[in-house]
């Protein structure tokens, strides 16, 4: 791998230029979200004391401040409220325009503004159903002592239910 203009960085991993979150247990205490994502599950943490289900997942309940939390599954199918299609200014790493986003009601749990993949321009409209879509992203070359291990990663978007 070559990094033009900064030859000393050839082959180096840079967390400050990484699009995706750290997902290993060494770097993220909610790493189970990503483990469940690999199984096609969309999860968050539920507070065992007050019943709150915040998103994103937490290590502390933001409502009653308990750390007594458990993982719960959320729906993986939602309903489109409205759609946007970005024609110009799509950031590197998100494919060719248009970059489609939708405001999605996840069965009353939350309203998510998410990327829609596998979707043509003009295809998606209000009221349509979309489902969770999980895909692989670049692994992180993480140091363990003198060894470097490629740590696999995933991320999610939604896609039309066909």
């Amino acid at each position: 791998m070559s990094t033009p203009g900064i030859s000393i960085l050839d082959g180096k991993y840079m967390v400050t230029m990484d699009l995706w979150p750290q997902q290993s247990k060494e770097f993220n205490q909610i790493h189970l979200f990503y483990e469940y994502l690999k199984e096609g599950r969309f999860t968050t943490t539920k507070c065992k004391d007050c019943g709150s289900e915040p998103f994103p997942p937490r290590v502390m309940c933001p409502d009653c401040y308990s750390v007594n939390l458990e993982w719960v599954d959320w729906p993986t199918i939602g309903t489109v409220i409205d759609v946007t299609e970005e024609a110009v200014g799509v950031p590197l790493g998100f494919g060719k325009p248009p970059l489609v986003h939708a405001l999605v009601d996840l069965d009353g749990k939350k309203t998510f503004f998410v990327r829609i993949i596998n979707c043509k321009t003009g295809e998606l409209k209000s009221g349509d159903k979309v489902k969770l879509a999980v895909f692989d992203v670049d692994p992180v070359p993480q140091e363990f002592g003198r060894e470097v291990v490629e740590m696999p990663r995933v991320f999610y978007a939604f896609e039309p239910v066909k």
Partner: protein
Amino acid sequence: MDRNVCVIAGGMSKWGVRDGSQRDFFQEAAKACYDDNPQLNPKEIDGLLVASAYTERTSYQTHLAPLVAEYAGIKPKNICARVELLCASGSSAIILAFAMIKSGQADVVMVAGGEKLYTPQKWEVFYSELASVDHDWDGGQGLGLPPPVFAMVAKQHMAQYGTKKEHLGVVSVKNRRNSAKNPKAQFQTEVTMEEVMSGRMIVPPLTLYDCCPITDGAACIVLAVEEKAKQMTDKPLVYIRGTAQASVNNMSANMPNWTTWEALKIAAQQAYSKSKVDPKEVNVAMTHDCFTISEIIEMEDLGFCKKGEGGFFVADGQNDFGGQVPTNTDGGLLGCGHPFGGTGIRQGMEVTRQLRGDAIQQVPNATIGLTHNLSGFIAAHTVLIYGREVA
């Protein structure tokens, strides 16, 4: 005894796609600020707050405030630190400088803000913008500083309240007309409604002229305790009457309402209350027109018009010269551009000039002025109220 806080000087570099570095622009802004008030001796400045959001990402520089102090030729002895709240960094720094002076921790504080956003390869700034929302959750959805977010806001506002694309256009035409008269602004030309309506599509319904540009530049303002301010300027004193900043969510999934900005309503209410000002008493406003739809919603949630009537309010000329509350009289973000840390300071400068009576385009007899910023994924709102008299 109450310590009152005044603005005694302000200046900015030329904003736009600039040749130069971040530190160059801070020097240009400091020079313009010193030139604005020759009675100000920079050696008497005892505090410095620097506002910059992308200094680490696009200039590879942390610990920025002592660097700016060195280049601005000042030696702060009561505070010398950086403040960051992305698009509201500048206003945040003014609030903190105000608090430092009000509480007796400093007497004369410079607030300097700016960015060098254009990098030798332009992709990097869009890429860096993914750090300005919740990187782990919204960034991974490809949402940077996000036209898609404001396109969704516009679509929802249009559906709920009948706001029209032409209403958005009125905001661009007004703010570009104002920036064309402001030599420091990024855009020096007016645009017509026809040009705006046929602009290049960015994210429907937002076209090119609905979106503020990426901008290099800096701005400086100096605040002083009233007793010293009286010795340091012969111009009319402009006081900071009250300030507020509110946040009720960060990640998009936690946004309570896309078309009524709850945190703005809270910040506005707090600022009005502390300032003893009613929205109808505001004579001139600088609001955060990062996108045209933003200015429309801000008219509503700042209480200048009824909810849902923002589009009709701007189309009726009510936030233009001669209307109820002339807004973005120097061109706003749409005309001046938006170097994140500089924007709140530019707004503070323009309100100061309007209240002193020496603005380029003067609102007659303005005595109360307001500035507003939103920041991140519409995740925080900042409101400051200035006046010719204390609250």
